């Protein structure tokens, strides 16, 4: 029953002369927490950008739930149930912390120029969404800042907001680009525990890029290691972390 939710086949992406991805094929099992590791500049973010539709690949294919999504616009990919966060936090600056989360909810009936006038029609949904948002804010310990415009947040808080927004989406696959960067270790552990909980309870799949292996590894089912735009190793964390190529990529050249 554990089928694959995400698959890339030989994805290639260059920027001018820089070949960021040189034929990357990965498989992410549904209901897993899969992690992508690799040194700086190895192409992890680029891969997320290609999967989420921000970039079109030069070659190769992306499948989500066995449906090809290569080159679809990001908003359509999102609506299929795939959400991504940004490595450098990008909140909607003038919106409040709460509003940043509320925006992420898909298909709000009040999100129409005439539908907005029929309050009765969207009020119920909005209440439900607000409740969900406050639960997430509580988990992220941002609840006291709910009515604060988000440009006033610290870098770490913005990172948390980035995570919170993704959790609002009701997505089946959540891709996070370094969710723990800049977050204190205790909270980081709490967040990763929450990911596992969501995976166990709701079957949500996580595809994470993370440098803080000492925190993230123990929550991870499967690891891909990338270097120079190619996957150099994959497997359960125990085997990947002792793989010579991985050790060389991280420690060596």
């Amino acid at each position, binding site marked *: 029953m554990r089928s694959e939710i995400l698959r890339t086949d030989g994805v290639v992406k260059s920027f001018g002369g820089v070949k960021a991805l040189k034929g990357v094929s990965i498989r992410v099992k549904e209901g897993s927490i899969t992690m992508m590791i690799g040194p700086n500049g190895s192409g992890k973010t680029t891969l997320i950008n290609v999967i989420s539709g921000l970039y079109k690949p030069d070659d190769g294919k992306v499948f989500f739930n066995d449906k090809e999504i290569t080159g679809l616009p990001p*908003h359509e990919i999102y609506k299929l149930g795939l959400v991504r966060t940004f490595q450098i936090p990008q909140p909607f600056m003038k919106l409040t912390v709460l509003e*940043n989360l509320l925006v992420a909810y898909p298909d709000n009936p*009040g*999100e129409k120029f005439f539908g907005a006038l029929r309050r009765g029609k969207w009020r119920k949904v909005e*209440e439900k969404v607000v*409740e969900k948002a406050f639960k997430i804010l509580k988990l992220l310990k941002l609840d006291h800042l709910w*009515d604060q415009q988000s440009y006033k947040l610290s870098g770490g808080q913005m990172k948390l907001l980035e995570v919170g927004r993704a959790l609002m989406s009701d997505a089946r696959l959540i891709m996070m680009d370094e969710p723990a960067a800049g977050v204190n270790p205790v909270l980081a552990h709490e967040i990763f525990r929450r990911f596992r909980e969501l995976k166990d309870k709701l079957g949500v799949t996580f595809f994470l890029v993370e440098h803080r292996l000492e925190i993230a590894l123990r929550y991870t089912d499967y690891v891909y290691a990338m270097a120079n735009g190619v996957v150099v190793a994959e497997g359960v964390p125990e085997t990947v972390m002792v793989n010579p190529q991985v050790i060389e990529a991280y420690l060596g050249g």
Partner: protein
Amino acid sequence: MIPLALTFIIDLLALLGIFIIISLSLNIEFGYAGIPNFGKLLAVAGGAFFIGAVPGRVLAYIYGLLKKYDYIDNNVEVMYALGKILGTNPFMSMAMLVVSLILAAAVGAILGFIASYPAIRLREDYLAITLLAMAEILRTIGYNYKDLIGGTVGISVPDPFRWIGGELRLALAASVIMAVAIIIFIYVELLSRSPIGRTLRAMRDNEVVAEAYGKDIVKLRMKTLMIGSAIGAIGGALYAFLSGSVTALGYDRVVYTFWPWVMVVIGGAANNFGVLLGATLFVTLRKLIIFYKSNLQPFLPFDVVWLEYLLLGTALLIVLIYRPEGIIPEKPTHTLGKKRLEKIKELVEAKEV
């Protein structure tokens, strides 16, 4: 006899209502959705030109006047005949007004749709220039294509307010304009306090992220410009009815693009009350300057018209320097009201996660 001061106020209110409508439409586009519409004139002129071109023709056709007269060349005769008919027929007058405004809004929406073509594809600065140019093109067409609205001489417009008679005409016109302005204010305010207002502001703050979170930016921009232009066209249409005639040259970018921009920026973008204040300050100040023109002239070493530009320019600079976000800056708009949100927060805090 209506006293002079009252006439001044009624006149002011009529003009104010029109500029409230236009600046609110710009507020949707720029304040909320972040589209730098430097072609606001396009929609306003579109609405006004429609009023110059269509309602009179339709009425003239209905009442068989076109058999005798050419609508453009014998405009004076046609309008005289229509004036007599409408002047004694309040129902027909008001029906014409309502239908015309609705159709003008539709024309505006179409122009907005056309304007959205570059708005979807171009970067901000290029977009601003393109929209500006599109508005100029419409104006040039109106000026040179005589059959539309009489070209250089312009055209008269059937008067929907005449039936009430004499001095009350202006009062009726002002009331109608204000009523429309209030309805539009309520609409825009409801939008801003709803999920769509939030989504537009999100798109404005970060287009890439909004798109990654499922917002169809292309569609949103298109719809925003259609709604904004429809409202702008209503403003233009009302101005045409108020002034009784339409001349292409009368619709210039200073009045119908830059002034609304100043009103929005001074008052506070993405804050409808701010825009209301901006429009009120602007229109009142201008009216006062014009009203006291002759009193002011002896004290000025230059023509008094320049004083208007000088004062308004200075006001704009002061606001931009000391309150860059406008007199009443953008505020968080709570869809469910702050109390309700706090209540939900308490309920969530009380429960274990």
